[in-house]
């Protein structure tokens, strides 16, 4: 198809032609086109539908402030809703579709809403849809939700890669227009580390959109030459296609680089977008200004756009929305558009200027003191109706209307620390206020310096000032330096259905109603009418709404309020913030030293924090996990089993005050622990609640190895450092984690000693006398490998934990399996581990749940009153020591076939079942192969005194209700004879 509206000149590459699709029709474009410019070139004005009334919509702007021209880009799992046609670069094969319409863009059934617009005024839904109550979810809401929303997701996983990175500089320049380029030149030549970022794929900003010249060059040539010089400087990094999205604390800026959105497909491994965290000493905001529209009746038809955008399409993209256009303006800039378009052969129907003293032009008609009062054209503009100065009406035929209501400085990023812009009367606009993010300064149009020459100069000066440069500034080329005369003109009097927020369909009428109903603050206005809440965040609509509200209230605009902006500057894909941390890479994975061996054994793994641990080791023929787990338990208790317990935290505690230090962090005493001995320790939080438990092994007078639970390893280490550095700074104690350094295996069961004796080097006697229960020491194994041996037991059996340097862990496990064959050794996983500790009545994570005290855990007497330890004082508060305090007990079903469910609640055997009569709850439950029935650990009110009592165990959630007996938590070997065997 021919590009009917393609003009001469421009910055597109006519030497090559790209083909693309929109709503399943093929079109052609040139490299350098955006989807919007390409569609206009192909004489397509209708691009979308509005949110509420489904009114036909075309493009309003030529940039990221676009409220109307949004489409669904790409297909399949790469479908990308709500994409701005005005910033999307055309690539070969691009496929875009209009959205929020059915069945088609030209005929949209929900356009019926437009007919009922009188009912659908601001906030109408707060006043109805209330009867009957149940109908909201069933009827009203589904209809509203289906109609609402804009584009749609594919519902498939995003297949692209995303990345994150970090960059540092002395000066971050945001925006590569005249001010930004001059700033970069100034700082770059001075040798500073500079990053120049711009959201556009072509650096130059407005310079690429204007016809005037800078010095002897055209504006765009000067921009190109400057960019060429900058890219040759090693200390300057140019970041096109990069939007600085937010100014965060202490000079950290977020920036999104679109590395893959302008190509049809990415090479493998290359990210679609990169989220950069830019650390900079200074930032210079050169974000330019955004033209503002004028509200008038039916000002939302396709073909009606900002005059400056029209100029950008003509000068940069060599295209026009129509061959015959009119301009509606309140300032000279609108005339400039008419001149440029005419120079490109576009017919100017007229320039309609609200000012009686508007400049005349002999090349086209200027209607002074005139206003557009209405427009025609269902799917695209055909006529505008003008009220002339003398009150008479005139109808102009035109396919496009350029509107210019003056300019708003882009203060967006200056507000990111909630600073408020201030009103400037000369500009009739808000300019950056005093309370900018520290380190940020503003130059060029963003600071209210709207002339090109002014922008160039302020860019150079801004950079020099920000960096405190003494050197001479680069020469600033001669450029347009027109004086600014912005007499505000917000809307045409008497209009009602005049659009302010074109995407959300907020009209002048809605603002008036909002005022009438008392929603008069800016915040109330926005929330009640949804003004400025659309995907463009009101960049072109907030000011108009505010001005009209001010007029209603009879106040000035600054009195009425300001609207501040929040990050991000433009919307950012959620995946970009996610970066690489998705799927299996969401968190790092920690593997135990025996992992590869366990994998060979066909182990089933389970996530424990970031660790992967073997849960059980199924044998051929075992069809249910219980078979494997029961076997592992029985075999361990009958002979010997091995379990990788490397994941437990290990902290090396050394120093002459090591014992005194442990006395502080553990509620029980450690001062008198003999060298070569290990002791169980309970740690409290300062609020008296149990924090963690583990063992401390004394390897020397001044050397302990402390173990923590897997889950709390990091917190306990942090806590110990706190106690060491902040509470007892003069204690001679040094801490370091050794969790990863040692592969540690539990070897448990009556034959554990026999097995170990085959591995431990003969010079080390580990007989019961030489190495009794709770003994520990440094040894060697397998002919001289340094190792540590602890005689501790979680299973309740005769058991040891043996540790060797991690790199030998794999070999040690294989050796234990080989040498253990004669004892029928079995590897066991976390399930069997859990079963055995429940059988033994050892508290674990489910019991140390952050709300339980030593008393609850049945260790009340462990809290030494003879010394100061963290948490001991507050553990004595009355609320933690009530007579009917929860106590840990064992639970057995009266009927052996009944199941005990963790999370079930205990009730008196006879009596109501409700929250008021709740007696406690089951923390851990398992099937015990040793007792051949389900058992559980529970917290029960006054549990210590209730052994033998029969109670109801109820779990309405899982529809269980069984009779249980309260028993001792130590189901197996209560006297602990096996431990000491």
């Amino acid at each position, binding site marked *: 198809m021919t590009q009917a509206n393609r003009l001469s000149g421009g910055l597109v590459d006519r030497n090559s032609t790209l083909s693309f699709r929109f709503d399943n029709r093929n079109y052609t474009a040139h490299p350098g086109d955006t989807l919007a410019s390409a569609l206009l070139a192909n004489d397509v004005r209708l691009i979308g539908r509005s949110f509420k009334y489904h009114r036909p919509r075309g493009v309003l702007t030529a940039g990221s402030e676009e409220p109307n021209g949004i489409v669904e880009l790409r297909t399949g799992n790469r479908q990308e809703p709500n994409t701005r046609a005005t910033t999307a670069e055309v690539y070969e094969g691009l496929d875009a579709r209009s959205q929020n319409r059915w069945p088609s863009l030209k005929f949209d059934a929900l356009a019926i809403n437009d007919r009922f617009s009188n009912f659908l005024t601001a906030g109408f839904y707060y006043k109805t849809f209330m009867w009957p109550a149940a109908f909201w979810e069933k009827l009203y809401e589904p209809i509203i939700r289906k109609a609402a929303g804009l584009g749609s997701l594919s519902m498939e996983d995003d297949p692209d890669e995303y990345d994150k990175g970090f960059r540092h500089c002395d000066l971050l320049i945001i925006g590569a227009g005249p001010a930004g380029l001059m700033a970069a030149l100034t700082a770059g030549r001075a040798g500073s580390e500079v990053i120049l970022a711009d959201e556009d794929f072509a650096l130059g900003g407005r310079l690429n959109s204007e016809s005037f010249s800078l010095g002897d060059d055209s504006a765009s040539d000067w921009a190109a030459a400057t960019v060429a010089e900058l890219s040759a400087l090693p200390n300057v990094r140019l970041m096109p296609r990069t939007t600085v999205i937010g100014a965060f604390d202490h000079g950290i800026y977020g920036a999104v680089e679109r590395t893959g959105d302008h190509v049809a497909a990415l090479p493998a491994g290359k990210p679609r977008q990169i989220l950069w965290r830019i650390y900079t000493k200074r930032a210079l905001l050169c974000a330019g200004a955004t033209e503002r529209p004028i509200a008038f009746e039916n000002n939302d038809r396709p073909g009606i756009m900002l005059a400056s955008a029209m100029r950008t399409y003509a000068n940069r993209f060599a295209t026009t929305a129509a061959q015959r256009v009119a301009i509606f303006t309140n300032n000279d800039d609108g005339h400039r558009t008419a001149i440029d378009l005419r120079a490109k052969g576009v017919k100017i129907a007229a320039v309609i200027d609200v000012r009686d003293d508007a400049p005349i032009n002999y090349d086209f008609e200027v209607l002074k003191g005139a206003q557009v009062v209405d427009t025609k054209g269902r799917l695209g503009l055909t006529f505008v109706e003008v009220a002339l100065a003398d009150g008479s009406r005139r109808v102009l035929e035109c396919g496009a209307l350029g509107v210019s209501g003056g300019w708003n400085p882009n203060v967006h990023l200056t507000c990111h620390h909630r600073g408020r812009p201030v009103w400037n009367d000369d500009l009739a606009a808000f300019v950056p206020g005093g309370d900018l993010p520290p380190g940020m300064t503003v130059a060029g149009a963003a600071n209210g310096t709207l002339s090109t020459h002014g922008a160039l100069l302020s860019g150079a000066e801004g950079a020099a000032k920000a960096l405190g440069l003494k050197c001479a500034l680069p020469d600033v080329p001669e450029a347009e330096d027109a004086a600014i005369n912005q007499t505000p003109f917000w809307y045409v009097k008497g209009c009602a259905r005049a659009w302010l927020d074109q995407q959300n369909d907020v009209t002048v009428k809605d603002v008036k109603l909002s005022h009438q*109903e008392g929603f008069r603050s800016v915040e109330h206005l926005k929330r009640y009418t949804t003004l400025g809440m659309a995907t463009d965040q009101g960049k072109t609509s907030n000011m108009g709404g505010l001005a009209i509200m001010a007029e209603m209230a009879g106040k000035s605009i600054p009195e009425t309020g300001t609207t501040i902006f929040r990050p991000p500057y433009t919307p950012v894909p959620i995946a970009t913030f996610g970066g690489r941390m998705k799927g299996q890479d969401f968190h790092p994975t920690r593997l135990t030293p025996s992992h590869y061996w366990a994998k060979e054994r066909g182990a089933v793994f389970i996530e424990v924090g970031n660790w992967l641990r073997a849960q059980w080791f199924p044998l051929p023929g075992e069809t249910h996990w219980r078979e494997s787990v029961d076997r592992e338990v029985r075999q361990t208790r009958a002979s010997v089993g091995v379990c990788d317990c490397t994941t437990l935290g290990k902290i090396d505690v050394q120093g002459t005050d090591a014992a005194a230090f442990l006395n502080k962090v553990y509620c029980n005493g450690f001062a008198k622990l003999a060298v070569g001995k290990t002791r169980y320790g309970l740690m409290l939080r300062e609020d008296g609640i149990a924090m963690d438990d583990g063992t401390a092994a004394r390897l020397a007078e001044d050397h302990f190895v402390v173990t923590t639970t897997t889950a709390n390893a990091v917190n306990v280490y942090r806590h110990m450092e706190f106690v060491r550095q902040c509470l007892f700074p003069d204690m001679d104690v040094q801490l370091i984690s050794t969790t990863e350094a040692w592969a540690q295996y539990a070897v448990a069961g009556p034959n554990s000693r026999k097995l170990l004796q085959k591995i431990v080097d003969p010079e080390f006697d580990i007989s019961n006398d030489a190495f009794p229960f709770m003994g520990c020491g440094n040894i060697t194994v397998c002919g001289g490998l340094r190792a540590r041996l602890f005689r501790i037991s979680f299973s309740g059996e005769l058991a040891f934990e043996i540790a060797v340097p991690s790199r030998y862990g794999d070999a040690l496990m294989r050796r234990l399996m080989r040498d253990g064959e004669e004892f029928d050794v079995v590897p066991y996983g976390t399930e069997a581990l859990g079963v055995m500790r429940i059988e033994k009545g050892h508290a674990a994570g489910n019991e140390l749940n952050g709300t339980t005290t030593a008393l609850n855990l049945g260790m009340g007497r462990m809290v030494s009153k003879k010394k100061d330890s963290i948490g001991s004082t507050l553990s004595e508060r009355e609320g933690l020591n009530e007579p009917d305090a929860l106590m840990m007990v064992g639970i057995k079903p009266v009927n052996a076939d009944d199941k005990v469910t963790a999370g079930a609640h205990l009730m008196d055997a006879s009596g109501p079942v409700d929250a008021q009569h709740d007696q406690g709850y089951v923390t851990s439950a398992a099937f015990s192969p040793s007792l051949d029935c389900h058992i559980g650990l529970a917290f029960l009110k006054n549990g210590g005194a209730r052994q033998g009592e029969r109670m109801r165990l109820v779990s309405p959630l899982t529809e269980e209700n069984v009779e249980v007996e309260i028993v001792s938590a130590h189901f197996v070997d209560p006297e602990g004879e096996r431990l000491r065997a």
Partner: protein
Amino acid sequence: MRYSGFQVIKQVLTGHRGWIPAWRDPEPKAHYDIVIIGGGGHGLATAHYLAKVYGHRKVAVIEKGWIGGGNVGRNTTIIRSNYLLDGNEPFYEFSLKLWEGLEQDLNYNAMVSQRGILNLIHSDAQRDAYTRRGNAMILNGADAELLDAEQVRKECPFLNFDDARFPIKGGLAQRRGGTVRHDAVAWGYARSADGYGVDIIQNCEVSGFRIEDGKCLGVETSKGFIGAGKVGCAVAGNSGRVMGMAGMKLPIESHVLQAFVSEGLKPVLPGVITFGAGHFYVSQSDKGGLVFGGDLDGYNTYAQRGNLPVVEDVCEGGMALMPMIGRARLLRMWGGVMDMSMDGSPIIDRTPVDGLYFNGGWCYGGFKATPASGYCFAHLLAQDEPHPTATAYRLDRFRTGRMIDEKGVGNQPNLH
């Protein structure tokens, strides 16, 4: 003026000329029976129930800015009563019941949408804990349902089941949970309270309390002194600052919680979903935006803005849980300042100062609590004793060791 479909039609026919302000804009009187500091959700709800349930009409709500500008306008709009502990569950269930009748009670459509909330389970220990919680909910008269992985997959096929670092093993569902149009809650309560004669005084900042021999006589404000028989403070987020004027130190820290909304999308999510292995929860608004959030920034702050690390952390969680939202764009982020209490639970109680009452410490549970908080605070103000469902929310519970610690992280506010 009563709102109804009929009223709308009538106004359409008369060019909408008849609509009147939703609430008056009165000047403060010299004295009120009860003055409530804070025109947020809780303060306005308190006024509504004081007037409607307890018959107090000489009531003023004073707000330093515009009503509903605090956390009721800056949250993720979720309502639920899926709590574990005795001190909490009855209160939040009472709140959920009030939500269920709210629109008829207020004659204002706050779009209470009971689309359900689903807490995902990723480990056996988590299933045990959620089982205990679900049972506690049912024993307290709330609804709860335990789902296995297959049931979750059926309801939310778009979740990451096949390539998850922390596989989904099930979920705890509360079907009666859901979302509410948050701003409308403040406006609805304000309009109703105003209708009963309550004065809502905006742009009136409290500068101090007038306290004589241990009794609070009223408040000094930017609009002059306002006398009061009783003063109720409901300014969560600023509790420390305001109660400090009464010489009180609170077991509360101020922290910022960020929230996020995406561009409008056609319906993709059935209800509220929370990730059990990362900091991410999400729902979809009636306008189509994905409304989501995660963890606190974690440092004391009064600035209503956050920083990048948490933004990334939340989106990482989102991508890990539902990679199909990757191409949806984050449109807007904002921060609300939370009253983070020392056990993660709120305070509704008298204070050592006679005639001064306190409501705060809502952490990030404040929005869902709005109706019950207002109701219970009104009850306390009117009858000088705690409402039956709020008896545990005492100011002295930390001294006595009767904390209500749902998360079990102790006296560390930024972990709750």
